[in-house]
């Protein structure tokens, strides 16, 4: 990597650059903080002739995803972006996009759900559509947001997958923070993603097809099972595509990323930008002789349960950090990890951190490893007065 090939880009700009290089046919958009820089940057690319897609300025996120389904099924490569309330508004249609096997790629700038209204990061928006059947990949930084957008485009369109892919990046922490990002050559990206091809698009002549029919108890279950299988197919398809991407970029990706697990006795599991902070803390603690490590989950949906169990089987203590709560129940990532490790001898505990954009500091991570925090990391005044 030559330093001159690096560009100083925010995560939002990096994804917009990926979109320019992919050059999708249709991009229905609706603004919402902190995603807006993505669509603004892309809109300028279109205005300047650097990208050629149809930018459709719809009147809501619900319509953004609806228009995306229409164009993706019509036979046009389609991308969009959203955050938080926007995802909540389009949630109904996100489920349907997965059910209709529309390979839409969507950038998600993760942001806390209202209320109270807030614009900063947590993962409650992603978790809201956890069970929608879409792929959710989490980036640690701007470079990963870029790479996963390119990779995600191929993944979405794989015949055995054919599902929406959400590339999630933490709002502000990634979307608005400038970092050095290595971009591939435009031609390399075009070649990697190839042409958009789906079976029997609506605009195909001579083969009229019915998309989105009505299914009663005699077929609904089987159709849902097919969707589940399609999402599970990502567990094989993503690592395979990532190999090709690594040859192109020198950057490898997997469903998850183990970090300093050799002889680890205490391992954190987390998603998103916090994993960068955790890596620094792990390095410091390892230097001090502490047997700690990290597993970063890249693919939250599908969840790589078998791969995680394989990695953590012999680890005595696993600590899950969730950036979303499930009031009245186990936080989503913790529930996932506990399920993956059930039957193993591993002790799984969990903490919720960072709701509404509260930062996770390296000292917080050290406190977590040291067992000095309760259920919530960085929460003031516990127990809370109600």
């Amino acid at each position: 990597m030559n330093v001159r090939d690096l560009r100083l880009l925010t995560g939002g700009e990096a994804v917009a650059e990926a979109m320019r290089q992919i050059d999708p046919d249709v991009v229905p958009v609706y603004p919402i903080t902190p995603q807006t820089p993505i669509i603004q940057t892309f809109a300028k690319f279109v205005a300047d002739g650097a990208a050629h897609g149809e930018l459709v300025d719809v009147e809501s996120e619900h319509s953004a995803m609806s228009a995306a389904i229409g164009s993706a099924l019509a036979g046009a490569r389609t991308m969009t972006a959203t955050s938080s309330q926007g995802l909540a508004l389009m949630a109904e249609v996100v489920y349907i996009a997965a059910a209709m096997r529309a390979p839409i790629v969507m950038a998600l700038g993760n942001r806390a759900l209202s209320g109270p209204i807030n614009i900063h990061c947590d993962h409650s928006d992603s978790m809201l559509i956890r069970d929608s059947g879409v792929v959710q990949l989490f980036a640690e930084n701007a470079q990963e947001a870029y790479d996963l957008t390119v990779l995600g485009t191929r993944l979405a369109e794989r015949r055995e997958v054919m599902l929406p892919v959400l590339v999630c990046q933490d709002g502000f922490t990634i979307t608005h923070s400038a970092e050095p990002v290595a971009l591939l050559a435009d031609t390399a990206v075009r070649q990697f993603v190839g042409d958009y091809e789906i079976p029997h698009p609506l605009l195909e002549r001579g083969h009229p097809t019915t998309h989105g029919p009505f299914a009663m108890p005699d077929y609904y279950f089987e159709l849902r099972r097919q969707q589940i299988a399609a999402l599970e197919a990502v567990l094989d398809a993503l690592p395979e595509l990532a190999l090709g991407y690594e040859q192109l970029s020198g950057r490898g990706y997997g469903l998850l990323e183990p970090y300093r697990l050799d002889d680890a006795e205490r391992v954190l599991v987390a998603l998103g930008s916090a994993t960068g902070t955790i890596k620094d803390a792990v390095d410091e603690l390892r230097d001090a002789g502490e047997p700690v490590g990290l597993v970063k989950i890249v693919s939250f949906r599908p969840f790589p349960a078998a791969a995680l169990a394989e990695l953590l089987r012999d680890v005595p203590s696993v600590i899950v950090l969730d950036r979303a709560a499930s009031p009245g129940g186990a936080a989503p990532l913790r529930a996932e990890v506990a399920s993956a490790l059930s039957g193993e001898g591993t002790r799984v505990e969990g903490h919720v951190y960072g709701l509404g954009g509260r930062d996770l500091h390296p000292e917080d991570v050290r406190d977590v490893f040291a067992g000095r925090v309760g259920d919530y990391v960085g929460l003031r005044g516990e127990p809370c007065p109600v």
Partner: protein
Amino acid sequence: MSRLKTLARREAGLPPLAGGHSLCQGCGIPAVVRTVLGSFDRPVVVVNATGCLEVATTRFPTTAWNVPWVHVAFENAAAVASGVDAAKRALRRRNALPEDQEPAVVVFAGDGGTYDIGLQALSGALERGHRFLFVCYDNEAYMNTGIQRSGATPFGASTTTSPSGLESLGKAQQRKDMTAIAIAHHVPYVAQAAGSHWQDLSEKVERAAAADGPAFLNVLTNCPLGWGHEPRIGIQMLDAAVETCFWPLYEVVDGRFRLTYEPEEMLPIEEWLRPQARFAHLLGPEHADVVAGIQRQVEDDWEALRSRCRESERPMSRSEF
């Protein structure tokens, strides 16, 4: 060739909407759909909002559609159509869609999917100027879920959520004027039509198809179950709506209003109300004033519409359009 022969010829072989669907006996929807689709001289792609038409024609693994058809949800048919239209433009630009193979985008939605839950998506798509025809089959209530009031339900109609009773005359509010709302978007073509007047409907589809931009057609469509009329008199019911001027047939082309049919003599509103069970509670002598009020409203609306049509006969300045 006569229009009737043309429509028949286009249905020969594989009709766009085949029989065997499960719409009710006497339902007005299939005749509207067939007339609309038969009036296109080029291929079509159909976008369908959730509703009777969707449910009754696509029970998996069967379909009654011989044209490309897509349904996503209830409120977003116009947004889905926006995406299909954008895809068309994108494919055309990269020479992946020859112009002679380019299908027209036609939306079918009921009044729920148009007047109410679908209004935002429709408004957005009209404002953005997508090239599509939105057809509302307006049967004046949520019939698919069992006859609940909608924004299209007329004053006084009894529905399951605006039932008549000792303390109720049925729906207490006026319906909204959806056609006027569409007109307010300054789109090139808007019209009202009725399933009874198929020739008028067919001509309107042709003009809508030729429009350089969005077109909106509001088509009064009878529902035997929801209106409470005998299945065999559906066309007569729609005819009564037109002859009483309850449902005027008109079009607005580039902002100019024109009546496409004018009854020789406006029939009294009872001709429209009487055969329908949903209005039966209004027809006793104790509610003569209510019926007289409906009559006055129809006359006022008709006069206002005629006045708009007369105004359109004089040359318009640019600022008026």
